[in-house]
């Protein structure tokens, strides 16, 4: 009985499961794809995205004080639990005096990718203030 289980296990390992498999090359490519979007986000973060020549990095050098690890969290000023993307849009509309981005736009995802990258390694702390 034991012997049969071992054989079954070996057989399972020997059969490729293509959907779950990836190579070092894949990992490199995926990271590169992420970094491309992150770098676009870095450029956007350092550009005037609104109407008053103010850019995100003026208050948040290296994305500091954005605390992406704490979202979603309750924003007393909005009266609800909000996401990082909603706060990015709040900044675009208020300190930058501009227009909000669509929440699923490439620009929004790029900004999020940059903000998270600068905060990498920090443990998740949803809801924290």
């Amino acid at each position, binding site marked *: 009985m034991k012997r049969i289980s071992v054989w079954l296990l070996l057989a399972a390992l020997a059969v490729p499961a293509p959907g779950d498999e990836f190579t070092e090359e894949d990992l490199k490519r995926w990271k590169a794809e992420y970094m491309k979007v992150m770098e676009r986000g870095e450029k956007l973060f350092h550009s005037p995205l609104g109407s008053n020549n103010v850019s995100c*990095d003026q*208050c*948040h*050098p290296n994305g500091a004080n954005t605390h992406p690890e704490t979202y979603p969290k309750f924003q007393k000023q909005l009266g609800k639990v909000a996401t990082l993307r909603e706060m990015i849009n*709040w900044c675009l509309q208020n*300190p930058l005096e501009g227009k909000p981005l669509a929440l699923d736009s490439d620009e929004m995802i790029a900004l999020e990718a940059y903000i998270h990258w*600068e905060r990498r*390694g920090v443990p998740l702390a949803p809801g924290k203030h």
Partner: protein
Amino acid sequence: MKRRQFLKGMGLAGLGATLPFSLVEISFAMGTKPAEHESFTFAYISDSHLTHLGGTRFTRNFDQGLRKAVMEVNLMDPKPDFVVYGGDLAQLGKREELDHGLELLSALRPPIKWVIGEHDFYLDMGRYWEDKISPLHYSFDHKGVHFVVLNSILTYEDWIARWPTAEERMANMARLDNPHGSPFLVGEAQLRWLAEDLAKYDANVPVVVLSHSPLYKIFKPWNFWTDDAEQVQKLLQRFHRVTVLHGHVHQVLYNQIGNITFYAMMATAWPWPYPVSYVQKPNQVPKLTVFMNRADPFHERDGTGWDILDLDSGTITNHYQLWMNENRTVAFDFKLKHPVDLKYQDPDKRIPPQFHY
């Protein structure tokens, strides 16, 4: 309607005049030494970053900060002997920005002592400032205290030469988190001048140094850093009571290195995070500082303000005027031999918004 708005404005102004400014008569010379000179106060306004948008248009938010500081300094009672403008009046060193700043500051009643910041300097290497506003380094005496103004935002010649246009040079110096930035310098020529200037003074004379960048090293990636700071400190250490007041960092920050007390002044434009909030690089933020409250972006003026300084016994008491927060007072403690926050220095007294991460 217009008359009513006018009266409302007058009412607010009248109220302001009776509120925080009477505090400046209180001095906190904790310890022993009596004043050996006449006590006096001065105000410090800094880092307004006026941003030109074209024609006569400027970024509203930053204009508002400077206007508010000017209005409040004019309400100080007793009146300050002078006002220090701590640099970064402009955002990109443009004449339009400096002229606009001069116009807003022309409403100030006391005379101004000028310190240049990197945002004022790197478009034309300080030429317009020097022609129209002030020398870049100088010294003066006031009621027994020796004041020295340094241009601490110089940098290395090879960095200056690497940019194809003045605009690119300015933009690259203006970006705080620029990986292609360059650390600030006081430089050999100014160090020689400083040594000669200080040589004329006895070690008992109180000395106050005014610079834009901190004359010590806090965080190189954001240029909270002066590369030759130790050489300046060496020239200052022989004085018994010596204080450095600087702008640039847009936050409550204070430190003590040997005999020298350091205070950062508030910005009128926006607050910077403390470098402890950027986890990818190590920092040397002074342990002594009780941080200001984390700013609430929904209150435009939160985390900004200006400073009232009063001199008693040759040390400075720094009254941080924080617009959306309780004001903070930091004074030199003669027993501990370093500055202390009069309310929050004890770690048990600190409040949650002072915790930055």
